[in-house]
């Protein structure tokens, strides 16, 4: 008798406790709200904008780009790119189009990313992040209402070209010059993100830079051989990446409660690095060279009319399709990581969680620098994280 009463009481207690929560946070399940995905940055996220800005023929609009789908369409891949997979997981029924092309359906977002984009300077036939944000502003009134913008996901990948150019122009830069440059680049990034925030965006996904020294085109141009990366560029990328989390924590902390700043950081650096170090675990045979191109690492000239590029037979064995862009197979992995991975990959929350997090709630978590314990775990052999 006593036992029965206890059970009843505990059940009633549970119900009582639940009713106290009059503002339940919907845990992400199948109820992904119908929001948009906006991407900014460089060729990694360019969905076809570059061809509208260049007078020359763009190699990415020619075979063998698009090889996996028999559809060269200006994307820097043999098929879809990570934002496309992410959009699928977000249940967006259309392809995220390049915003600069006419007559595209932008009802669920758009890509403002352009190949060769930088944070600083004035890249040729391209747009800086700042210009991309301004372009977004120009198009906003006609296409998206404030509520939609507030709830949509804004994803940014930028900076690679700044550091690649810097290294080319300053091959012997000393540590302090590098630091100064990283500071100016990341400051600009912060300003541009703030500009986007003031335009109404509140959910940001920042993808850290790849280990730039490990890109096949970089290995090729700096003659690192097949086993080494160009560590100087990896250092620059690491310095840049270290500043991202704290910068976003600050932006979230200083945002007013009435207009929260929500963000997450995708550790792309380690996603790429682990795939080059333990390639078999990720089912890649070749991670130090490209599927398409010429040169020591087959990294140059894919799609160029005057370059007779080698073309690998099975692009799904490769991490990189051309000198610096990932194959569709890798892009699909990144899409999965972005959408649903744990905090050692994307933190403080993954995009599935970010999308359903109420837009008028400040984030309760912040970005946390990796401890030496997590770093050790990551580097130990055989431990499968993803």
């Amino acid at each position: 008798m006593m036992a029965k009463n206890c059970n009843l009481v505990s059940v009633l207690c549970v119900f009582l406790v639940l009713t106290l929560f009059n503002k339940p946070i919907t845990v992400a399940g199948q109820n992904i709200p119908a929001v948009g995905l906006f991407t900014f940055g460089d060729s990694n996220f360019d969905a076809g904008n570059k061809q509208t800005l260049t007078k020359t023929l763009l190699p990415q609009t020619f075979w063998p780009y698009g090889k996996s789908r028999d559809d060269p369409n200006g994307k820097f891949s043999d098929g879809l790119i990570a934002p496309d997979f992410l959009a699928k997981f977000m249940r967006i029924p259309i392809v995220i189009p390049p915003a600069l092309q006419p007559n595209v359906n932008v009802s669920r977002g758009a890509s403002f990313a352009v190949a060769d984009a930088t944070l600083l300077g004035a890249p040729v036939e391209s747009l800086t992040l700042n210009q991309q944000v301004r372009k977004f502003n120009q198009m906003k009134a006609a296409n998206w209402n404030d509520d939609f913008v507030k709830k949509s996901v804004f994803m940014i990948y930028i900076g690679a070209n700044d550091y690649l150019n810097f290294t080319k122009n300053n091959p012997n830069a000393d540590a302090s010059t590098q630091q100064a440059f990283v500071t100016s680049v990341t400051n600009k990034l912060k300003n541009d993100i703030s500009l986007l925030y003031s335009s109404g965006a509140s959910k940001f996904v920042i993808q850290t830079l790849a280990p730039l020294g490990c890109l096949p085109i970089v290995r090729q141009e700096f003659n690192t051989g097949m086993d080494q990366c160009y560590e100087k560029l990896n250092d620059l990328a690491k310095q840049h990446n270290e500043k991202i989390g704290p910068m976003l924590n600050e932006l979230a902390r200083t945002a007013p409660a009435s207009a929260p700043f929500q963000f997450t950081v995708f550790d792309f650096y380690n996603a790429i690095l682990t795939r080059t170090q333990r390639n078999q675990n990720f089912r890649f045979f070749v991670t130090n060279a490209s599927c398409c191109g010429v040169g020591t690492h087959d990294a140059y000239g894919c799609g160029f009319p005057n370059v007779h590029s080698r073309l690998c037979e099975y692009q799904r064995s490769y991490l990189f399709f051309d000198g610096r862009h990932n194959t569709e197979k890798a892009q699909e992995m990144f899409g999965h990581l972005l959408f649903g991975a744990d905090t050692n990959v994307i933190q403080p929350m993954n995009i599935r969680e970010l999308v359903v997090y109420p837009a008028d709630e400040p984030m309760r978590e912040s970005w946390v620098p990796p401890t030496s314990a997590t770093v050790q775990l990551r580097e130990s052999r055989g431990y499968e994280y993803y």
Partner: protein
Amino acid sequence: MLLIPSFTANSNEPPPSKLSLSDLSMAILKSHFFLLFPLLLLHFHTVSFAQTLFVFGDGLYDAGNKQFLSQNRVDASFPPYGVTVGQATGRWSDGSIVPDYLAKFMGIPKISPILLTTADFSHGANFAIADATVLGSPPETMTLSQQVKKFSENKNKWTNQTRSEAIYLIYIGSDDYLSYAKSNPSPSDTQKQAFVDQVITTIKAEIKVVYGSGGRKFAFQNLAPLGCLPAVKQASGNVQECVKLPSEMAALHNKKLLQLLVELSRELNGFQYSFYDFFSSIQNRVIKSKTYTFETGNAACCGTGSINGSNCSAKNVCAKPEEYIFFDGKHLTQEANLQVGHLMWGADPEVIGPNNIRELMVLPLDITVILAGIQEAMAAMRPRQSNIESLYDIKKMESEMDNHWLYQVDKAISFMI
């Protein structure tokens, strides 16, 4: 068990690995995940790694059989055929054909024509021959039945295991529909369906014969939009548009062929297939030639007439075959064959499904429930969750496929070149 492929220096593809669970699970995941996965855990599958290729078909795949059956001069045995590789071998192209590229990617030597009796057939044989059809009995060639009969007669050249693991590559039907369109300029829908059904029924019977001899891995290249072949356009008098009827017949055939393969995968134990959408590949290249690195999708490289659609000879061959999709009025250049080879070998399911040839090569042999989830892009079908034997499902599949293929045909005839 690691086999080092004998590639030329042009490849930096590392040796293919043994079967990996990932390849298998990738394929399984494409359909019936919930049903199959537990079965997988219980069942230890036979590792497979196809090193044998059997080729059946017409001029597109003929590697030199025609000269043994023809009393007259066979054009493909003389220049300018083979001009890009410096040698005419009886292939109807300026160089290599699709089976050559697939053999290369598989890591085996080119497959020789069966009628060249002195050749080495240890890695398979090529039974394809120009002018081959499915129906009828055209002279100086072998119908599909005759090719399959030839295969059966020679089957002891290969062990049972080899024949089971081998890939059977088939491209046939063009000549059936081209003759039909010529002698029936305005058939009714019923007549068209009836003819296609005849062709498909015969193909079904021949597949079963090969299956009976142990064949399990079938790779089908569906038919090109036949109305876009330079020979056909030139003969019609209007070279600005693809001719409607042949393309329509091809589209109808393709739809029914896919249905046949799905049916067989449920009927025949262990039946595996790849269905390559060649129709879309050619359409893409004809409409947007430059995107695919071709200067033109309209004219052939070699021949006479407004678009070089007939009578290819050394006197009228273009300077750069790689700029053309079609070498002569009906066949592809080496460059086009190379792109097709890449697509068949490694493209996504939208292009070749449910598996590409590389996946087909390593698929374990005794998978009983077949990966017959047809990709949405190919046939606009919903993934099937239940038993598809019901008539309703087949009909629904047909009506959904209608839109896909006929839309393709409309695109093929309505553009101006």
